[in-house]
């Protein structure tokens, strides 16, 4: 029972309130309770809303793919190629980034990625650059990776560590070479963990506003930036709620699809 109350108070009621608010009106920069679908019609009728929607979906999708692909060799090596001591230290260092605020980590990237930053200085010393990395899509992705990569490695590592070594030996024994075993046996066995890691990446980057704002230069806007812009311009909280609800519904849909995929019995 307490869990139900807790869920209601901290999860269901706020969501319902958000939903309710999306039907309110704004008059003279003040919110007025009401029940009008005008916010939904206005937001869904705007081209820039849909552009932002697909852009955010694409950014999160690309980030999820890049993170999963980058994290896998690292998690694989830590799970199968190193001693337990090295694995424990690696786990520790993968958790260390979470000690520091994400915002602080993003600000430090601004210094690194700056036109006169250390990366461009180093590149110019071998006659390359300068490359503008700040306020580009590249900058945004660097930020997303900062957010997602350590978590993805940890989650993949946990699921790879649980792979039954005996099944790997059985695969080798049946003529499956080392490289092929990764795809034929190890990935199917670690599938749930790999998908869960990907879902986390997607959720984090889909809703993140820090990276596209401070490293991507906030243009073109993602949905999270759109929410901020909407609330700032004319106190349009109800319209921001429309964007927020759309995002939540999208995430739920993606999450359920992914989990269904993870637990699907393959034949």
């Amino acid at each position, binding site marked *: 029972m307490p869990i139900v109350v807790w869920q209601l108070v901290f999860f269901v009621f706020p969501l319902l309130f958000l939903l309710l608010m999306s039907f309110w009106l704004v008059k003279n920069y003040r919110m007025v309770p009401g029940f009008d679908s005008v916010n939904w019609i206005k937001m869904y009728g705007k081209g820039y809303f849909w552009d932002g929607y697909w852009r955010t979906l694409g950014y999160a999708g690309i980030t999820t793919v890049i993170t999963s692909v980058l994290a896998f060799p690292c998690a694989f090596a830590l799970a199968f190629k190193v001693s337990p001591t090295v694995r424990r230290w690696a786990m520790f260092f993968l958790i260390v980034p979470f000690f520091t605020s994400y915002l602080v980590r993003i600000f430090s990237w601004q210094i690194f990625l700056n036109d006169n930053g250390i990366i461009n200085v180093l590149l110019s010393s071998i006659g390359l650059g300068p490359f503008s990395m700040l306020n580009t899509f590249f900058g945004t992705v660097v930020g997303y990776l900062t957010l997602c990569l350590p978590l993805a490695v940890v989650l993949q590592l946990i699921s790879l560590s649980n792979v*039954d070594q*005996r*099944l790997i*030996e*059985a*695969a*080798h*024994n*049946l*003529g*499956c*070479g*080392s490289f*092929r075993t990764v795809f*034929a*046996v190890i990935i*199917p*066995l670690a*599938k749930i963990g790999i998908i869960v890691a990907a879902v986390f990446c997607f959720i984090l980057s889909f809703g993140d506003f820090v990276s596209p704002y401070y490293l991507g230069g906030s243009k073109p806007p993602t949905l999270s930036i759109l929410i901020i812009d909407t609330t700032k311009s004319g106190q349009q909280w109800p319209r921001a709620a429309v964007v927020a609800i759309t995002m939540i519904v999208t995430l739920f849909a993606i999450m359920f699809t992914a989990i269904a995929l993870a637990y699907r*019995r*393959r*034949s």
Partner: protein
Amino acid sequence: MPTNHTQPLVLFDRVTKRFGSTTAVDSISLQIFEGEFLSIMGPSGCGKTTTLRMLAGLEEPSEGEIQLAGERINNVTVSERDTPMVWQSLALFPFLNVIKNVEFGLKMRGVSTIERRRRALDWLERLEIVDFADREISQLSGGQQQRVALARSLVTEPRILLLDEPLSALDANLVVRMQGVLTKLQKELGITFVYVTHRQSEAFAMSDRVVIMNQGRIEQIDSAKGIYRNPATRFVAEFVGANNILSGTVIAADRLIEVDTPAGRFKCVESSDHIWSIGDTTSLVISADLIRLSTSAVNDENEMECRFISEEFVGSIVTVLAETPDGADFRIQLQQRELSELDLKVGATVYVRWDSHDAHLLRDTN
């Protein structure tokens, strides 16, 4: 039975395997012949599984050479050896259904989809589990999973099959049934089975030859009967069967060898060609099932007065525990019916005796 004794299929030549400072397998030499059912038996930690794993390529020998069909295979990787294994854990792939598990090895060898389906179905048919082809592994019983594991290993038609305690997870009735399945298969296919187990009943029921290992070394290689009746070492005598072992000294060595033990003096007809001389220390081994029990003395040449301690009933056979004059345990196996006729009370005096031909002398005395 082995068909070709001159050219072994597998040869272990002074093979040693060390893990850090422990020696798991200590310079063993072993020949395994084409078409034979060979069991490797021993207590846990004796090196039997390591030996099997070296043959499969899952462990690399520290020293010595392993040959398969006349070729050195020390450096051949696991996936390139055709030495499929049936695992104690079965190691079936949980993300594949029954038929896909069986097809796995064929797929890895590049056999076409239609061909591998056909061959996999053939094997499922042969092992009487074709109805479960599209089931998930988790939906099968232990015995059915066992059959899938067998089919998966045999579908590639190997010359040798390695089995690592494959029946240890099954209940007693199923074990006997699977033993029948295994021996029948082995005879039909005519391929070599190398079977690792710690259970005497499994090894003896199925094997042409049995290898007894202890502390990384081979103690004896012989037929089941040979090992049972003529244990080569004290370890084998203690590990196999229900043997009574009496340590003593040879006091007469003619046609009959007479041994003086704390429990009395006994005679023995030694069948081996070892020459015994007076003063040799030895152990006299008498199998519990070759001993007769009575309540009165017959004054036979190998007779001993004992005290009845207890009986242990296992089906039609009863093991009687008695105490020798010097206070050691002595075991006698007899039919339940015979024992009930004697109507023994705890502490009663009983006489045990055996034929001089049925005793066996051990050379090693450690």
